[in-house]
């Protein structure tokens, strides 16, 4: 079974702190994604990566950056956390082969910025 793990389930940070969210997948997937999920808004794509060291902006990249130094690991960085970044953050991965493109999600990190 594909497993996607995220470094923390719950995280509380202060405004202005630099925040790192880590995601690891164990099935050699090419693609990895970071979403945030807010009530009534669904999942919104922040950044994604289709290869090591490659990254693409999603729909809401402002205030975030990402890093993918190894195929299995995709990090989301909040350079200077703000209260409007309080949210549930979900990481996902997919194989990258057409027709087998279901996304596998991690359990999520609930981030609170005070």
């Amino acid at each position, binding site marked *: 079974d594909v497993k996607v793990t995220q470094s923390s389930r719950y995280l509380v940070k202060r405004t202005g702190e630099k925040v790192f969210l880590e995601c690891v997948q164990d099935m050699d997937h090419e693609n990895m994604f970071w979403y945030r999920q807010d009530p009534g808004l*669904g999942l919104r*794509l922040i950044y994604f990566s289709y290869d090591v060291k490659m990254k693409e902006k999603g729909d809401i990249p402002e205030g975030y950056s990402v890093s993918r130094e190894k195929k299995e690991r995709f990090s989301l960085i909040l350079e200077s956390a703000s209260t409007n970044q309080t949210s549930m953050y979900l990481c996902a991965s997919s194989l990258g082969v*057409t027709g087998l*493109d279901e996304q596998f999600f991690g*359990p999520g990190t609930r981030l609170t910025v005070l």
Partner: protein
Amino acid sequence: SQKIEQNSEALNIQEGKTATLTCNYTNYSPAYLQWYRQDPGRGPVFLLLIRENEKEKRKERLKVTFDTTLKQSLFHITASQPADSATYLCALDLRRGGYNKLIFGAGTRLAVHP
């Protein structure tokens, strides 16, 4: 403007009945459409994928239809059980080369009562 809409109100049904959830979209041309299930505090789990040239797809008690003229997908759960209670997300699959960009709806919460 582009949007994807699911019933925002919860759907309450009696055990054994068929649940029907709706996903409507405008100004998108998805190649595929995916449905996910999400339980509270967990990441979404993939259920079904349907291609634009498929009218209907079935998997056990689940059935999905996809009407690209109406720009609508219907998701049915037959012989529903309390264990089917969850939030169901539809996602437009905007296939782009080697990766699939998913646009998610906000989800519909289903409650199946004994």
